């Protein structure tokens, strides 16, 4: 077997040294009744593995061979060759959680740098070493708030938060006796300040709003943070498209107590939805309730600057059921990828990527708005994503429309019907710095053609 280094004679010598005559003797404690060989095919050679998995891969449309406008939580941004090639290095790829700092300074310093980048982007003071992804990051933020604001049971969530994030929060909460109140969006498609204030009461420990929200509209962090402050709750800023942090006023500046969400778009490929990169940052006062790993700076026995995992008394391996979270393995390699990416782009690059993504989306939005048969339901400011509505009697289902475009190698957006069967005429369209004007024009033309065949005629 190509991944097994023991030679026949070595194995014999080892069994002899152990003092058994066969491998089977070592499995004596496994009752015969529970044994069983798996009914799997014979081993595949590397060539066959490439054919098998390569064959499957070739049956997926991907961002490199389509005109690509999908977002809704996962974005197709530029990643430099150097980032991915660095990940091949065994020292990064095949190490584990840096429990032993003397032989893990590489990983530790990289995480420390990642924590710093996240703080700079969110405008908050402390960030952890990563969480799984955006939805569970929101849950961790909510549970953190619950610990910080003792004796309250209610979390208020804007309906503008990604539906999968909200569903995840419900999954966790229902079993913890915590209550979730969802505040519907205003006619403008953003969190309704009045409704939000109304939903908050003395039992509320957290108020969470996402910006840009699921419809792509930019929200004002201050709405949530002010509402929260008056009631003694904590405000949580949720970010699903982290590139926006380089252009939009950051959560910290907007008074958020905790920022959390998804940092995939900062250097992590889409990976068909995973591995992604959850992040969480907060104020210094709250750092002892932060979930997950934290890396701190310290010194070695000879006084050199060194780094190590710290505040581990918050964690499951020490606090068991009293831990701030059950998370153990997190998203280390993705945090590294993101650190490389953010460090490479830096001050100017992160901003330029955000500006270009925004400009491309604005162009596309304007062009689509011109096409008879479609409208942009909300006029508010968007970052790089916006909602499109198919006009008319509803004869045209957005999902079917998008399926037809997909056959022409245009992935034109995510239909809202995926999350609400009744919402059949709207879809979310995203653009990034990787979209060219040419492919956007192709997309717009295809939409026009669809509308025409559906009976719409230009004014």
């Amino acid at each position, binding site marked *: 077997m190509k991944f097994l280094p023991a030679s026949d004679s070595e194995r014999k010598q080892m069994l002899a040294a152990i003092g058994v005559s066969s491998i089977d003797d070592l*499995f004596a404690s496994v009752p015969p009744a529970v044994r069983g060989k798996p009914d799997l095919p014979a081993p595949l050679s590397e060539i066959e593995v490439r054919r098998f998995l390569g064959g499957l891969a070739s049956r997926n449309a991907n961002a490199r061979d389509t005109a690509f406008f999908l977002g809704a939580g996962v974005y197709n941004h530029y990643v430099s060759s150097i980032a991915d090639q660095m990940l091949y290095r065994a020292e990064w790829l095949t190490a584990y959680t840096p429990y032993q700092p003397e032989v893990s300074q590489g990983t530790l310093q*990289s995480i420390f740098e990642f924590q710093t980048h996240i703080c700079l982007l969110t405008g908050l003071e402390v960030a952890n070493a990563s969480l799984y992804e955006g939805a569970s990051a929101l849950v961790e933020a909510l549970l953190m708030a619950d610990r910080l604001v003792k004796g309250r049971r209610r979390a208020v969530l804007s309906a503008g938060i990604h539906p999968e994030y909200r569903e995840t929060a419900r999954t966790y909460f229902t079993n913890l006796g915590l209550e979730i109140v969802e505040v519907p969006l205003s006619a403008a498609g953003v969190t309704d300040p009045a409704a939000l204030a109304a939903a908050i009461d003395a039992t509320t420990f957290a108020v969470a709003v996402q910006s840009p929200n699921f419809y792509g509209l930019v929200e004002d962090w201050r709405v949530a943070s002010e509402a929260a402050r008056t009631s003694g709750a904590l405000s949580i800023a949720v970010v699903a498209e982290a590139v926006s942090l380089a252009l939009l006023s950051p959560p910290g500046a907007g008074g958020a107590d905790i920022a959390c969400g998804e940092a995939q778009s900062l250097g992590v490929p889409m990976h068909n939805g995973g591995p992604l990169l959850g992040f969480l940052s907060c104020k210094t006062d709250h750092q002892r309730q932060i979930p997950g790993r934290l890396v701190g700076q310290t010194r070695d026995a000879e006084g050199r600057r060194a780094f190590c995992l710290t505040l581990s008394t918050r964690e499951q391996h020490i606090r068991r059921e009293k831990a701030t979270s059950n998370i153990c393995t997190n998203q*280390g390699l993705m945090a590294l990828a993101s650190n490389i990416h953010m*460090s490479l782009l830096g001050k100017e690059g*992160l901003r330029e990527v955000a500006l270009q993504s925004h400009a491309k989306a604005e162009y596309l939005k304007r062009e689509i708005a011109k096409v008879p048969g479609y409208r942009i339901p909300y006029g508010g400011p968007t970052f790089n994503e916006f909602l499109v509505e198919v006009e008319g009697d509803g004869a045209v289902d957005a999902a079917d429309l998008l399926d037809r475009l997909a056959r022409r190698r245009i992935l034109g957006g995510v239909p809202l019907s995926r999350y609400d069967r009744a919402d059949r005429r709207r879809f979310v369209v995203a653009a990034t710095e990787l979209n060219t004007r040419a492919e956007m024009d192709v997309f717009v033309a295809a939409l026009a053609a669809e509308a025409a065949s559906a009976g719409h005629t230009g004014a």
Partner: protein
Amino acid sequence: MSSTDVFETPVSDRDRLHPEPRVEPLIFERSGQGKRGYSLPPLDVPDTVAIPKDLLRTEIEGETQVSEVEIARHFTRLSRLNFSIDQGLYPLGSCTMKHNPRVNEEMARLPGFAAAHPLAPEEASQGSLELAWRLERALAELTGLARVTLQPSAGAQGELAGILMVRKALEKTGRPRTTVLIPDSAHGTNPASAHFAGYKVRELKSNPKGTVDLAALETAMTEDVAALMLTVPNTLGVFEDRILDIARIVHAKGGYLYCDGANFNAFVGVAKPGRMGVDVMHMNLHKTFSTPHGGGGPGSGPVAVTESLAPFLPRPTVERRSDGRFVLDFDRPDSIGRLRTFLGNYGMFVRALSYIASYGNRIGEVAENAVVNANYIRAGLAGVYHLKYDAPSMHEVVFSDKSQVDRGVSNMDIAKRLMDYGFHPPTVSFPLIVHGALMIEPTETEGKPGLDAFIHAMREIARECAEDPDIVRKAPHTTPVRRVDEVGAARNLVLRWRPGAP
């Protein structure tokens, strides 16, 4: 300005005097006006910012300005401060640090996977849906259970998913019950996950063999107990030889048997949890199935369940229709819901299926060789280090520092000293029931020469403890940095670099 002012003296000579840079500046400390490591195409659309000023920021203060050259240097040099599997034995107990086959990395990077989007139309995603479906089938076959969810992001989230399914099943019968039983040898994520599933945790004392005390279980296993969370083999590397009795006791009271499958590496392809009476089990693809540990993840923690728990699986499931097409099934009214976005850590599915396909029906050799290696180390160190529980070892063996403490040397000191011999230390201070634990898991991907070198090093260290304990207490001596002050780190927290900070 005289030139000598300009030619700055670098970091201390002690550190220069070493071919490996021992201290690498933070990337932020490399920053400088006018440096840039990237470039973008000229904007081909009107340059507009259609967002109100008060919602914008003007700059990201403190962010880097560096060139690609410095990125290459920085991350190459940093990486060299790490120890990794590809450098040598990494016997971190319970973590299964095995070789990561490189073809897995190639497959996961295929654009059809790495550049695919989870919300693309099903028609445009048949390849990725089929892969998920096939991986589920393979894991079901290996566990002997009916269905599998691939959604959990890592083992801990798998535990939560599993217990939540149990809870949902019990709720159906009227009451979710209040308590989860967990042996004192269990991994910390077990109680933590039970807690976040809304259960009280009741700890089960292990018997002198380190396994479940059946009598204690009988009494503890009341109608209030939702499940017993059992690690098989347990964290001592001992297989519960009374597993069938344990299952009988748990089931007799209407409880569920949860298997923490992080140690599946010890019997994958040899025995099936389904036949042990296990109702629900999580696996760590990043352990048993060789997806790389990446310096701390990403992981992936699929959960296998019996037919009766299948209705409660997280949403969506991947189903194969009679016409051979693969679809996502959201319409599962009894589902616990979802634990994260999308399908899970998909890139890990690709790697795990690549691995399982490479072994096929010979995957049992993984467990066989893992167990041989652990027992070889046990034989080599027996008598040299104290073995609190001498029940037969499976894939790992847990020694302790008991024979060394009287020389003032702790398991941590021994761990640090191993670094000087060119090895990563074993897991220390876990499992909690072994004081001064040295938890050693070589995995199946270590050959005899590496094991011999490790055994030799451990014996040398034992000798040093007797003859010259100070060299062990002050270890490591040859690593990029010497013993790191972890207490100081927690006492005086510095969790980030700050603009303007030296």
